[in-house]
């Protein structure tokens, strides 16, 4: 079983290849059979591998398939000789096992759901081809045993994300959103790559286990500047992929993609890759408390800000997108305070309930023939009951109502950020307030969508129907998981034994002390009570405003005045970025490249002047090149390629003459020099 672990990523890849070559020709049923079946088998295999792993005493399995990239000998930064040999290899330990199960499991469920959801869309096979390709990339990312192969998967999921966001390419906004996601992600990827290079010259290897071992050997002091730099670079990479401040702007726009894509890629799996990567590099991060503080700070700030934005959004999927950003912030907060296990736990439960929320939202959109504006919904409770109840369960879970999964995992994070060795009261307060906001925006959504009077457009109204079985099956399964998911990490305090935490412990065992601050069990209980309390408050406020007296909502909005405006416009961050980077860059007709250029170069004014100059010279440019540096180079190269064309007259005589000239010059060189 374990020996053939490579089957797990390979099967979806085969599915993708099948769709690629034959998808257009075969029937839809065959497409769905192949593309849903193969991830299904992959999931089953993953379960098998998981139990096989449990059977091993050390809970560790590595498998090197073959030497991929024998780089050879080179000098390390320490002066010693290193010999880098990158394998294609798989590492299965508790961390990757959890990720593997989440990716294959949730992925499979979403594939099943997609059968119904995408049934009437064009490009059915293309969709499943991309989805399978995504599964492959994500599994490579999760199961690889080294940074380089992880990076390959990392780029792969980015590519699939780009392709799937732009799936409805005929909508201009969709292809724009795809480009935005791609460009913003590139910034993070560049940092990840730099971090990886630093790892290579520092440790002489990219293998996870080797790097971890070296970091834990005690050879490197805490606060070692190189390690701190590595961690910060890696974290910037994670920021891009996991949509944290300041690179979160692409995720809300990514909702242009089909809803199953939002569920799979932009909620459950891909966006959590950053959290996984930081956890994977936990040994390094423990040596860099400064980087840890940065992680926790950015995580908590993102959690809070995204939650405030979510309250004012009216698009059902955008609310969920901001909610995802906010929840990812929680996970980073956990990583930042050294509670990696708690972060992974929340990652898992979040995968359940957020995937469910998206799929249920998709079911709502499906029922309303594509309507996404919550102001045009309402009163759907009776008409699509299964969707409603599953949505409610997910909303309760994310709001942190016991004993649902969200409560357990979120509370673990809150407790760790309060009592953990790197914890701080500020972090806890931010998380706690966010918990209240979460409940508020979730139930605002529930009430606006399912309760109250119907504001659905009349012609849509009589089309409303419950979704097909395959979709409902997915909803119910995920709802079940959202309910029981918490019990595998049920805390000691409430009579559980936190099995998930103990399972993950060996991965996060660092020589640096991680003991909790000394608080009594009572304190933990108090905090737990407080967080449940604020969640209930949030729900109650939402109820008061949006159900009891809907007219209050507007009044509240008015009384907040400018504040509400700011929130509604998402703190004007998009506008700010537009003003700072994008608009100016559009002047040179090159949004994408310039964005990079500005961010990378920093010196806005100097660069601005240069680019304006080049803009006048370079009307010929008709291409969006992602990399700013390449673009500048490209201009000069074009300039220089004119002489080459002048020579290329097309006349044989001139050609012959040129050949003679060449002989003459070469021979002259010889005669003069030797």
């Amino acid at each position, binding site marked *: 079983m374990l020996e053939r672990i490579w089957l797990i990523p390979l099967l979806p890849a085969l599915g993708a290849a099948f769709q690629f070559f034959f998808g257009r020709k075969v029937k839809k049923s065959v497409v769905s059979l192949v593309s849903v079946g193969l991830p299904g088998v992959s999931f089953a295999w993953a379960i098998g591998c998981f139990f096989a792993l449990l059977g091993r005493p050390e809970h560790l399995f590595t498998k090197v398939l073959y030497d991929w990239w024998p780089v050879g000998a080179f000098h390390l930064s320490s002066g010693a000789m290193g010999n880098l040999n990158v394998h294609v290899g798989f590492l299965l330990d508790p961390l990757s096992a959890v990720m593997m199960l989440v990716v294959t499991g949730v992925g499979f469920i979403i594939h099943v759901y997609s059968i119904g959801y995408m049934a009437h869309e064009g490009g059915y096979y293309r969709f499943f081809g991309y989805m399978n390709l995504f599964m492959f990339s994500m599994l490579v990312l999760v199961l690889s045993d080294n940074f380089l192969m992880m990076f390959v998967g990392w780029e792969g999921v980015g590519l699939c994300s780009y392709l799937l966001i732009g799936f409805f390419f005929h909508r201009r906004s969709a292809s724009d959103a795809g480009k935005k996601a791609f460009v913003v992600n590139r910034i993070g990827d560049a940092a990840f790559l730099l971090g990886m290079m630093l790892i290579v010259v520092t440790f002489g290897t990219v293998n996870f286990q080797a790097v971890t071992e070296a970091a834990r050997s005690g050879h490197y002091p805490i606060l070692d500047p190189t390690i701190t730099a590595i961690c910060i670079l890696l974290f910037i990479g994670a920021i891009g992929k996991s949509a944290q401040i300041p690179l979160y702007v692409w995720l809300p726009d990514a909702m242009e993609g089909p809803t199953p894509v939002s569920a799979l890629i932009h909620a459950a799996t891909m966006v959590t890759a950053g959290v996984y990567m930081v956890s994977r590099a936990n040994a390094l991060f423990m040596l860099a408390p400064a980087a840890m503080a940065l992680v926790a700070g950015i995580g908590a700030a993102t959690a809070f800000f995204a939650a405030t934005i979510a309250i004012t959004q009216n698009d059902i999927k955008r609310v969920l997108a901001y909610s995802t950003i906010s929840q990812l912030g929680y996970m980073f907060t956990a990583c930042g305070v050294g509670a990696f296990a708690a972060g992974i736990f929340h990652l898992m439960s979040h995968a359940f309930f957020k995937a469910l929320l998206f799929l249920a939202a998709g079911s709502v959109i499906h029922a309303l023939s594509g309507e996404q504006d919550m102001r045009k919904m309402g009163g759907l409770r009776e008409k699509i009951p299964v969707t409603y109840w599953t949505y409610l369960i997910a909303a309760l879970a994310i709001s942190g109502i016991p004993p649902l999964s969200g409560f357990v995992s979120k509370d673990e994070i809150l407790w760790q950020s309060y009592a953990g060795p790197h914890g701080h009261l500020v972090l806890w307060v931010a998380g706690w307030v966010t918990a209240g906001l979460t409940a508020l925006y979730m139930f605002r959504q529930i009430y606006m969508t399912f309760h109250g009077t119907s504001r659905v457009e009349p012609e849509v109204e009589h089309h409303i129907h419950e979704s097909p079985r395959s979709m409902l099956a997915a909803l119910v399964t995920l709802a079940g998981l959202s309910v029981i998911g918490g019990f595998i990490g049920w805390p000691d305090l409430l009579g559980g034994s936190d099995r998930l935490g103990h399972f993950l412990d060996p991965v996060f065992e660092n020589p640096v002390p991680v003991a909790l601050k000394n608080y009594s069990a009572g304190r933990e209980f108090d905090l737990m009570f407080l967080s449940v309390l604020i969640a209930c408050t949030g729900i109650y406020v939402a109820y008061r405003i949006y159900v009891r007296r809907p007219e209050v909502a507007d009044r509240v909005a008015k009384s907040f005045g400018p504040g509400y405006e700011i929130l509604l416009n998402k703190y004007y961050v998009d506008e700010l970025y537009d003003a700072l980077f994008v608009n100016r860059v559009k002047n040179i007709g090159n949004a994408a490249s310039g964005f990079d250029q500005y961010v990378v170069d920093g010196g806005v004014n100097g660069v601005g002047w240069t680019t304006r100059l080049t803009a006048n010279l370079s009307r010929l440019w008709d291409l969006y090149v992602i990399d700013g540096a390449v673009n500048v180079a490209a201009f000069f190269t074009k300039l220089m390629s004119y002489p080459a064309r002048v020579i290329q007259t097309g006349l044989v*005589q*001139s050609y012959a*003459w040129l050949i*003679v000239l060449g002989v*003459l010059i070469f*021979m002259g060189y010889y*005669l003069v020099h030797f």
Partner: protein
Amino acid sequence: MVAEVTFFILSALALGSAVMVITRRNPVHSALWLIVTLFSVGGVFLILRAPFLFAVQIILYVGGIMVLIIFVIMLVSVDVSGRQQQFSRQWLVGLTTVLILAAELGYALYRGSKGFLLARSAPAAALENNTQAIGTALYQNYMLPVEIASILLLVAMVGAVLMAKRKME
């Protein structure tokens, strides 16, 4: 002494007529000058006491190939090429380049002439075996190149027929 003088005269004749070949506008004239060139080279072979090569040169090139060429020229309308505009007007540039190249090669020859194994005329005694020696060289040491040359000729033939055929169904 006589041989050297003859050699220089023949070489000058060969080169001079070669220049005439490429500068004449009338193809028939070019062909006739080419015959002169080939004859002169044949003469050089004779000075080197290589009678077989001399004979082959005269019989094959002058007698066979040149006649064919002239036939072809006669078949194709001669006037057309005479009336056509000359494409290249950069003959001065071309000439300069060629002269410089020639000077370079001349310089290289001058510098390297010591190492050059100058062809010497075979002693009179070897004369009888000359034809035999060529036969041995061609069919023993250079057997493979000779055979492979047949492939080259076949390809050239196929190519020529293919290019020349007006229409192919």
